[in-house]
């Protein structure tokens, strides 16, 4: 079943065309890597698919309904309820502890503090970061930060996980560990995963690769 679809998506920043008519479909439960050289438009595509950004023209559909023309409130709700998002330089709230950061999306969704904390602790444990639950972001290493960010993205049991360079600047063994956690949790929850990466070894964790170059798909969508 098609879960996500882009139809002729175009996006420009000033005179730079970031996306030039991208069309693709992503099936439910699939893990997809979007790859391409720097400036190829892969992050912009992720932002359009996840409703962070609206395309200038074209459409984005999720679970059978069009989402690019929703107003900001509706898109924010969609992102909170159905999507989990992990960025490379993940912006955890510096004043909050790891567990408070992870619990945040649940609090936004209206869950009680005690319940949110319990669920958040469970997610931190799943990604092997239970021991840093009470630490603040400044006290954490790169790998620990990324684990907390993943726990936060997973905390609402999202249907789709969007990740932009999730292994970031981690070395290959630490990066692989973080990625295995993300993919393992996604598989266990039957979530769909869309990862943007320039790293071929990260792309090899996904079922399928979509290659972008100069804002357009290269050679169509390859299996």
């Amino acid at each position: 079943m098609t879960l996500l679809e882009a139809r002729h998506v175009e996006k420009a920043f000033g005179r730079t065309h970031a996306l030039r008519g991208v069309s693709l479909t992503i099936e439910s439960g699939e893990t997809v890597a979007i790859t391409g050289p720097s400036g190829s438009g892969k992050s912009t595509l992720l932002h359009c698919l996840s409703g962070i950004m609206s395309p200038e023209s074209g459409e984005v559909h999720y679970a059978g309904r069009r989402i690019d023309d929703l107003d900001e409130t509706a898109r924010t709700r969609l992102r909170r309820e159905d999507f989990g998002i992990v960025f490379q330089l993940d912006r955890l709230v510096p004043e909050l502890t790891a567990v408070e950061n992870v619990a945040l999306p649940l609090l936004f969704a209206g869950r009680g503090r005690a319940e949110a904390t319990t669920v958040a602790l469970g997610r931190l444990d799943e990604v092997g970061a239970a021991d840093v639950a009470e630490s603040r972001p400044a006290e954490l290493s790169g790998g620990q930060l990324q684990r907390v960010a993943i726990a936060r993205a997973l905390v609402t049991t999202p249907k789709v996980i969007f990740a932009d360079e999730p292994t970031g600047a981690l070395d290959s063994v630490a990066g692989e560990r973080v990625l295995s956690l993300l993919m393992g949790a996604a598989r266990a929850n039957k979530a769909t995963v869309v990862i943007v990466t320039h790293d071929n070894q990260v792309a090899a964790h996904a079922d399928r690769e979509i290659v972008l170059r100069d804002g357009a798909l290269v050679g169509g969508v390859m299996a």
Partner: protein
Amino acid sequence: MSTGHILLGLLTERPKHGYELKREHDERLPGARPLAYGQVYATLQRLERDGRVAVAGTVQEAGPERTVYEITEEGTAEVRRWLAEVEPPAPYVSSPLFSRVVMALVAEGAADTYLLRQRAAHLERMRELTARKRAAGVSVGELLAADYALHHLDADLRWMETARQRIDDLIQEIRS
């Protein structure tokens, strides 16, 4: 590198018999061609003749009686000497992949389709290796072998992308 050095390396842990050495060789170097038992036996005899291993006794498990070998001081020195040398960096530019990519870039109009197909083939292999690393009960030897293959395939892909960009730059330069 020789089979002798590998067997000596395995014997630095403790005395072992020939069958055990064959099994450990194949397990720890899963990317290598499995050792024939005859080769293990012949190599052990040669190492014994050169004073690098010695017979430490025999054991009888479920099967036939097996001779157990131990490494000698001379053997240990030989392993150290071997590991003190570096492996000459391989001249990868002689690989068939290199020739094919260069020719694809030279033959006008052929590069993009070919590079994409080659990339898909490489990634498919990388997916298999990645899945193998995730399998339950994977040994350290298997992990190391899969990492080795993954890093080399990754290097091929990165070089292919660099090559494509260089040709693109060159074309832009000629046109401008």
